[in-house]
């Protein structure tokens, strides 16, 4: 009888154990990273979920002709109307300090909301109407139990008096929670309850569009030339080394370059998606070139040879046979570069895209900010409600990223030849 164990060489059991050990180490590593991922996404989601809804207060307002002249709606002081409306709702508030606190229940944006509601629905004019207005961030936090009423009064953002009012409003059904679409349709604001992500989202979109439009054709072109046509000499070797080095240059350096060259030398408008996109393109180019060259290199040389042997010119051989095979890989590399660019903050800070932007940019030449910069700005704000905003902005950023990758995957699947 053959003893297989003996003939298989020394210490077979130990070799099998090593195998097992390695497999378990791998599983453990994956488990740990999954756990961290779950913790991260979980905490972002739980923080950001508060932004889903906002609180509104119903305030009875006197919109009669003596308060607002129907012929001159713009000239009326809606703030005054709001204040008197609040005073009438709580007639026992007389002290100046208390009145101020009372006004504070409604967001400072409230008076503008009255204006907007009137302008969209002029039939509101001519009597006392109950309008729903956005409540202040503190009221919202309190309603969601984020402010502990058992703390000493001086340590919380909301006083006993205010709590009393809030309870009173709740009893009379004058408070409601609504889906916070404003988060997706507004620009930034000093008031967290009405601050929105749209300006940053559009800014990011514009910057990325510029970045893609510049870096994709340039990068792919450079990759094709360097890989397929450039002679192999010292000059091209130096270029190659420099491209590889550029890929690892810290992004803030590109920001400095953009600041001094694009803004300083060429005098381009600061804080704009145009310059932001150009800086991001500089940063993304090396990634695209390197990935593009790798993709081209992986195409079997036999295709090119076959085409050349048929009498195709080198350009025909590359564009008809090498490029179609390499394109999906090039696209993947470009998307990785674009994803990096999307998450980049530092270079945008340098060219002034850190501005406080309330209005949604309409073109690439208007001041804008970007999603990661917006997150940075909000995370830096003292108001507690902004913490939730930053978490929600991170969710928006991630959704943006995932949809971008999804498009890339679909595109790649479409381009990838079945044979």
């Amino acid at each position, binding site marked *: 009888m053959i003893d297989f164990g003996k003939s298989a060489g020394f210490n077979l059991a130990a070799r099998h154990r090593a195998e097992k050990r390695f497999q378990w180490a791998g599983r453990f590593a994956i488990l740990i990273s999954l756990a961290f991922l779950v913790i991260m996404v979980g905490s972002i989601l739980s923080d950001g979920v508060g932004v889903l809804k906002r609180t509104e207060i119903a305030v009875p307002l006197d919109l009669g002709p003596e308060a607002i002249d129907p012929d001159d709606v713009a000239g009326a002081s809606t703030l005054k109307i709001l204040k008197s409306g609040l005073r009438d709702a709580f007639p026992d508030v007389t002290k100046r300090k208390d009145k101020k606190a009372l006004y504070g229940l409604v967001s400072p944006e409230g008076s503008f909301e009255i204006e907007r509601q009137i302008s969209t629905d002029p039939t509101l004019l001519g009597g006392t109407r109950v309008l729903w207005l956005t409540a202040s961030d503190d009221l919202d936090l309190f309603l969601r139990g984020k402010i502990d009423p058992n703390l000493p009064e001086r340590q919380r953002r909301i006083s006993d008096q205010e709590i009393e009012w809030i309870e009173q409003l709740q009893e009379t059904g004058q408070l409601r929670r609504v889906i916070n679409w404003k988060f997706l349709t507004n620009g930034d604001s000093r008031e967290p309850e009405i601050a929105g992500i749209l300006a940053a989202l559009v800014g990011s979109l514009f910057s990325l569009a510029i970045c893609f439009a510049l870096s994709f054709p340039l990068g792919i072109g450079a990759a094709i030339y360097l890989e397929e046509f450039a002679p192999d000499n010292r000059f091209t070797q130096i270029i190659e080394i420099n491209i590889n080095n550029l890929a690892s240059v810290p992004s803030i350096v590109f920001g400095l370059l953009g600041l001094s060259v694009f803004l300083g030398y060429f005098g381009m408008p600061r804080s704009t998606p145009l310059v932001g996109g150009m800086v991001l393109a500089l940063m993304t180019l090396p990634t695209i070139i390197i990935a593009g060259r790798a993709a081209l290199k992986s195409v*079997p040389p036999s295709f090119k040879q076959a085409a050349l042997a048929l*009498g195709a010119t080198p350009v025909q051989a590359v564009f008809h046979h090498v490029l179609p095979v390499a394109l999906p890989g090039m696209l993947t590399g470009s998307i990785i570069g674009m994803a990096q660019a999307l998450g980049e903050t530092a270079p945008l800070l340098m060219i002034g895209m850190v501005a406080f932007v309330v209005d949604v940019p309409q073109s690439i030449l208007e001041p804008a900010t970007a999603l990661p910069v917006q997150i940075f700005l909000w995370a830096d704000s003292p108001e507690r409600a902004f913490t939730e905003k930053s978490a929600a902005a991170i969710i928006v950023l991630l959704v943006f990223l995932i949809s971008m990758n999804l498009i890339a995957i679909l595109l790649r699947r479409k381009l990838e030849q079945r044979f």
Partner: protein
Amino acid sequence: MEHPFITARDVDVFYGDKQALFGIDLDIQAKEVTALIGPSGCGKSTFLRAINRMNDLIPICRMTGQLEIGGQDIHAPAVDVVALRAQVGMVFQKPNPFPKSIFENVAYGLRIHKMTSNKTELADRVEWSLKSAGLWDEVADRLDEPGNGLSGGQQQRLCIARTIAVQPKVILMDEPCSALDPIATAVIEELIDGLRKDYTIVIVTHSMQQAARISQKTAFFHLGKLIEVGDTETVFTNPTQEQTQNYITGRIG
């Protein structure tokens, strides 16, 4: 004796400092199959690739001497290498169909050289090429399927069809059967024998039986030198050189 179609005079080929071919003088007759045999690294493939200047693609490779096809020096400044390669087709060792459909594989050369004026003409030429390569009956109903879904032998015949579609004068074959099984090899050999009446064929092979079966002339290369060339029958039965004798009887190589 008729005028040779391809003439090589004193051809030296160098890879960098290393010389791969030494003073090759070789005449290749039109519409014959000439087999280049010899042990690995003897330079027969290098010589083959010199005929359609595929060696140009290797930056360190350079050639001296004279190579004429149909009386035209292929290194003359007036000769466009692209046009040369359209006239001198090549079939590679490993079947290398393009990652496209069977039809597109054959049509590619016709398209880039604008050899057909409309779609029906193109389809006719593709059909003719596939028939000439003996592949039509097997693929007629699946022309839009990928070329590399075929078997190895079919792929190689597809490559031959692709090559003859543009009607070259010369077909170079670099060990076309080395990746194929004996049955596929036999099919290809039969095909080569049939193509002989229309094309000048130069084939590199490691199989001496193959050389004996399909070629009219055989050239034996050894260590970069052309040792002997002559009618295949003579070379195999009555070689003048001892080295040839040793090689074909299996003593060297």
